[in-house]
């Protein structure tokens, strides 16, 4: 059920939220356009869940303005919940509830609901319709959580870490399901700390760190705007000081970890030539060279000065 006009489905302006001494959100601002898949990317504790829970109306912000589907989540919770679907980081249901019963129970809370049969088929749960929740695998539980998020045929879907704890194959299964949301024209907000997930699924991404948006744009824009360029991963016969590699032509940055050197180069061809000349002059040798385009992780590192730990 796509939003038919072009006004933002989600509008967040200078949002602040504090828990005691911890400032979870420090004035974040972003908009989500109709039909867009928007990602909040950041490590644990960055403020992603707080932000999504404010949008769901589960938490009250300390200050700032929030509009979701044209409504204030704090004041129009009931009406808003009719129009959004949400999936929690960990969905816990009673052990002895069956899959179909859970979908029917939650569908019954809304004025309008999607077809349970269609949801069971779409999320690959038709054969498990009579299975108890306690008997489902992790992937099946997560698919049920996604199906529950769509039980009211929402125009905005909010997904909090939809693939956390799942193995790579199961993650890719969930990606395929979320990609359908875009084709259906649903607006989707997802939080994640998986780079791959944000790059693959999101039209736009806001990178969150310590409660602040440190970068925002399409994954491509963010990567291209990174001043660090292509990443060269190098293994050498003899150790050298990273600062010496950093001084090479076209090398923007260099750091060393576990015997490997990570160089950021722009343009990469000139940097590789300079590296070869340096090794020859030093009597050193190149054991391994891996060249990778920059990723959102590089953007994160550039913005925060550290890797994104899960």
């Amino acid at each position, binding site marked *: 059920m796509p939003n038919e006009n072009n006004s933002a489905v989600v509008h967040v302006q200078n949002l602040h939220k504090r828990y005691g001494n911890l400032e979870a959100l420090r004035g974040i601002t972003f908009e989500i356009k109709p039909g867009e898949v928007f990602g909040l990317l950041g490590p644990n504790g960055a403020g992603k869940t707080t932000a999504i829970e404010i949008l769901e109306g589960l938490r009250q912000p300390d200050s700032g303005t929030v509009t979701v589907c044209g409504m204030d989540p704090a004041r129009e919770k009931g009406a808003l*919940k*009719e129009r959004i679907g949400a999936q929690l980081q960990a969905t816990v*249901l*009673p052990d002895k*509830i069956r899959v179909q019963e859970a979908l029917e129970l*939650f569908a019954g809370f809304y004025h309008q609901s999607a077809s349970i049969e269609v949801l069971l088929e779409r999320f690959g749960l038709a054969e498990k319709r009579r299975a108890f929740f306690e008997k489902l695998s992790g992937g099946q539980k997560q698919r049920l959580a996604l199906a529950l998020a769509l039980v009211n045929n929402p125009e905005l879907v909010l997904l909090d870490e939809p693939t956390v704890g799942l193995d790579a194959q199961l993650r890719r299964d969930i990606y395929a399901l979320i990609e359908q949301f875009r084709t259906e024209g649903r607006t989707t907000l997802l939080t994640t700390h998986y780079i791959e997930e944000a790059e693959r699924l999101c039209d736009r991404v806001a990178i969150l760190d310590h409660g602040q948006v440190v970068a925002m744009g399409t994954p491509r824009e963010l990567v291209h705007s990174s001043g660090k360029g292509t990443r060269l991963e190098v293994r050498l016969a003899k150790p050298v000081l990273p600062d010496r590699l950093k001084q090479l032509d076209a090398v923007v940055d260099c750091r060393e970890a576990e015997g490997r050197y990570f160089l950021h180069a722009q343009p990469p061809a000139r940097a590789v030539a300079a590296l070869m000349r340096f090794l020859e002059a030093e009597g050193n040798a190149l054991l391994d060279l891996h060249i990778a385009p920059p990723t959102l992780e590089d953007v994160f590192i550039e913005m925060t000065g550290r890797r994104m730990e899960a």
Partner: protein
Amino acid sequence: MLASIRIALMTIRLVMRTKVALFFTFLFPIIFLFVYLGLFAHGNPAAVIYFFGPLVTLNIMGSGFWGLGMQSVMQRERGSLRRYRLAPIGPGTMVASNLLANYLLGLPTVALLVVCAMAFFHMPLQISLLALLVLVTAGTFAFAGFGLTIASIANTMQEAQVYNNVVWFALLFLSGVTVPLPMLPHWIQRFAAFLPATYLVTSFQAIMVRGDSLFAHGAEMLVLLVSGTFGLLFAWKLFRWEKEEKISRHAKLLALSCIIPFLVMGVWMNARGNLTAAWAETFSMMSRPPLSGEQPAAPTDANLLADFESPQEAENLLKRWQISTEASAAGHSLGELDLVSPGAAGTAHALRFKGHVAPAPDSDHGNVAVRYTFSLTPRDQGPRGIQFDVRGDSRLFQVKVEPPTSAFATPALSFVPDSDWQTVRLPAAWLAKPAGSSPTGTTWVLEILADGPPGDFKLDLDELRLY
């Protein structure tokens, strides 16, 4: 409302699928019925009626505190409330669904208890189904309120268990649920007037044993309903979806206000003054024949022990009746015996036991007893019990029958006479039998004790016989 019904029906369905929940919801109350009535009623249908109310109360309390209350905390700790929070339903829906599920699960349990008590303990159902439904509804409402209030103020399961235990044990032992109120010290009976379970227990007993109308106990029902409403309002206002949300100390103190109706009721009932006497009267009626159902055989002259009709015999009889004002128990109490006319059931004479109850200056307690020693001749079939007719001042008396030397404390049966003759029955099960003996062929001492507040007393007694 529809959402509450949906969740309640799902909760019931989930209970039916969980063996432990099924056991504690349906089977455990039945097992407990057999243990409880077996221990307390001794096969006496009148006693079964008396103890049935406490049994149902215990069941309602249990489901309120340990079923509903603990389940709410467990759901919150487990995180299963969070998913509901995303749906367009609020705390009121969750509280209402809990209450409804508890009620709908409780009704068949009470029905099972009624059926088992009637089938296995020959309990006549001396209560209309409407009155039973009203009592169970008011009780469920009140204790659901208490259980959910505790659940809403407890931050963890452990905390909820501590709160539950404190309230549970107080109600269990001080409100007539396990120990009949008239067997408790007078000051505890006065304290019991402040406890919610007391009103459910005593209303059950007054309606089932004494034949009171439900309307006579409207105040008690009202207090239970008002208190339940308070509790449910608190549960609604303090409802938390997630274990991370903690409750303030201020809110915990505020939640205590759901006991206000019971404070008001307790003060009022104590001020009325006839509270404990009414409980004692109901208690004493365990010795009367049930209001309906199988009646015991009419007494015959062969069963007569004393009727005071022949003045000559009466003189002899008087010698066998002894006043006991043993100093340690009696204080400054006094008693005397006399013959008065007319007696019970149109007879000429009756025995009058009168005197004055007065504690010693250093004590707050005093009593005076009259004792009668008699023997029973062996017979093929032992008597069902001993009965006598009484009338007198409306105050508490206790009666017990025991061997002259009894190695253990004999339970006493309390009764409150009034100006009309009434029959008091002491079932054989209440006789303190020496090990291995039958009630016949033994010397027995009947003791009637004038107890209670200081003051004059008068008790006429006649037609002492076996039945």
